[in-house]
């Protein structure tokens, strides 16, 4: 699968190669695995017995992968209770424990065909990768046969509108936009009107990045949601929180704050193609069984993957051969 030669830029190997989906995902997560999985495997095989030393080393590795203190303790607790006798058994138990935590979160986004437009509101802190995710998501939905419209709700950051428009052109989908500085709720309003009039299947609404501690900006987000809700009481049907995989335990605070403001219904974890990332998903899954919809594994337009728990654990901790 070429796990150890992942040095090419994502863009260059986008075009349909024959590696297959799992292979490619696994390939993209190679760095993560090298960080956590490989070291774990070496570590476990280096120990002749299951003892406190082994548990401590594993604790350090999990903590070092952003799994967080709570989830790490829970995982270690589960394996200890399972009373593994050999390091191999220990490894199997570890895989099982990770899967048990993350499995309930693997709930893909399903676009109901009865609802038109199906409204997806995208939120997150600055620099999480919202606009890029929307570009990739639009591409995915288009290739699944949905008609898509984008709304440039980030009216704060300079040139954010242009950035989304570029993605619109690439995907051949209309972008509803006003100028920078316009009221984001008004953009959402116009987009809802246009999407309804043109009967598009999916409307994706971008929002400005905001730190979850900025009360004023979180209120603005509430307002956008309220305005959308005037057209359809159930809209937005999906509130997608975009999180950067590189952030640490602060992801938990982000989730909590955005959730209390606008009711997060799904997560997208971006930039998973770096090193030693992904552990934060376990910390989050441990606290909230929130659906994880997508993961971003590269810069190419195809690099948004549906989150699959088993694949994710496989990619991080490969099954022993």
């Amino acid at each position, binding site marked *: 699968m070429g796990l150890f030669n*992942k040095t090419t*830029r994502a863009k260059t190997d986008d075009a349909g190669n024959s590696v297959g989906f799992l292979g490619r995902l696994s390939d993209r997560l190679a760095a993560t695995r090298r*960080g956590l999985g490989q070291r774990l495997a070496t570590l476990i095989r280096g120990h002749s017995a299951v003892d406190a030393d082994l548990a401590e080393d594993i604790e350090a590795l999990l903590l070092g992968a952003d799994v967080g203190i709570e989830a790490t303790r829970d995982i270690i607790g589960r394996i200890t209770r399972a009373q593994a006798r050999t390091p191999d058994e220990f490894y199997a138990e570890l895989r099982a424990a990770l899967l048990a935590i993350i499995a309930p979160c693997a709930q893909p986004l399903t676009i109901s065909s009865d609802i038109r437009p199906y409204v997806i509101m995208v939120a997150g802190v*600055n*620099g999480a990768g919202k606009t890029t995710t929307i570009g990739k998501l639009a591409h995915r939905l288009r290739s699944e046969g949905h008609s898509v419209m984008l709304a440039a709700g980030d009216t704060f950051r300079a040139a954010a509108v242009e950035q989304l428009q570029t993605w619109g052109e690439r995907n051949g989908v209309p972008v509803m936009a006003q100028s920078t500085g316009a009221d984001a709720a008004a953009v959402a309003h116009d987009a809802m009107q246009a999407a309804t009039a043109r009967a598009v299947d999916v409307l994706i609404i971008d929002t400005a990045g905001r730190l979850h*501690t900025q009360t004023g900006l979180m209120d603005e987000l509430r307002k956008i949601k309220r305005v959308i809700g005037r057209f359809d009481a159930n809209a937005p049907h999906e509130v997608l929180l975009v999180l*950067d995989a590189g952030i*640490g335990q*602060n992801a938990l605070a982000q989730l909590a704050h955005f959730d209390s403001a606008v009711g997060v219904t799904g997560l997208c974890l971006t930039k998973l193609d770096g*090193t030693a990332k992904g552990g934060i998903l376990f910390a989050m899954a441990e606290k909230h069984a929130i659906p994880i919809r997508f993961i971003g594994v590269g810069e190419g337009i195809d690099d948004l993957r549906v989150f699959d728990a088993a694949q994710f654990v496989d990619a991080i901790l490969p099954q022993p051969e």
Partner: protein
Amino acid sequence: MFDNLSQRLQLAMKKLRGEARLTEQNISEALREVRMALLEADVALPVVKAFIDDVRARAVGKEVLASLSPGQAVIKVVYDALVALMGESNDRLQLAARPPAVILLAGLQGSGKTTTAAKLARFLRERERRSVLVASADVYRPAAIDQLRVLAGTVGATFFPSTAQQKPVDIARAAVEQAGKSGIDVVIIDTAGRLHVDREMMDEIQAIHAAVDPVETLFVVDSMTGQDAVNTAQSFNDALPLSGVILTKADGDARGGAALSVRRVTGKPIKFLGVGEKTEALEPFHPDRMASRILGMGDVLSLVEQAQQTVDQEQARKLAQKITKGKGFDLEDFRDQLRQMEKMGGIASLMDKLPGAGEIPEAAKAQMDDRQTRRLIAIINSMTPQERRFPDIIRGSRKRRIAAGSGVHVQEINRMLKQFGEMQKMMKRLGKGGLGKMMRSMRGKLPGVPF
């Protein structure tokens, strides 16, 4: 941003406060707490280990044993270790090169390079009186160049136009050349976000670096970064001769462990903190002050500096006189205070720097947002000068008029007047008992009281 770390450390230290002697055992207990606090603050594991060892080594030394108060001694040790870890003092930008001095920004996607470029341009123009040219070598992210062009306009920097069809190295070289011709002091080159494992992109930034020979190569990193901060910082440090670090998004509730990790791994000073979305929200980083902020000792020095920059000295002197006389603090003064607080970046920014602020419950802090300040100012604006001087005359019909004028309910006028009454009392006490006493008396009443 270090709130939680600070709280945890204080809690750990509290356990020591009652101890008569510092034993091996109670140090260990405190250090366990410190370790947990640091890990929860996203400080990278190897850095945590080294830090704990450092504190332990310092703590069992003679200085502690000779000390009368073990608790204080340990706080001092942790403080010293933090300062040692983060660097001793603020490192300024070294721009003493033959002009144009080139600053190169590098970092991961979404770390905030473009915004930082604009903030830095503004900082250099306003604080250092330098002419600045900014150029974007980000030909990958859609509209990245546009973003910098717009920002350059708002901060009054010269923008070097580039297009996504050009090569990043060519853009950088041409920008420096142009700046040289037009006699501009500083060139800031914004680059595309890149992953440290992306060989091709890391080669590109090395090529840019070689082409323009910057005096400052700054690594821009999100303060919310997790454990991976060590890997990214290490890779960027290996690829480029970094001269410093800028920590962004430090105005959130991130526990800021990345600051410690990046500093430790690269050995390069953190030069600035990004503390907001606006272009002026860039602060020089002071390790010693940050250390006392982490420990909850407050950052009064920064506060004083900030006050000197923004506060009208004459006004402040008058107010101080009034207060020491113990009377005459009226709504006009109150409004001046509120306005000055707004100028200094709002309540949240002030609270971060006050000693003991870490002990204020989160729920109370949440109530003290800046909208409240603006609303209070609006209420006072709707009063007549006489009402401001003698609030006692504000009765029923005046209240209704003020409420209508400022767009609030009468209840809010009542609440505001009550708060003001409390403040007047406090000001009187301040006149007699000094600041420390006031801080103590405020603690119970903070929710709602605007500072």
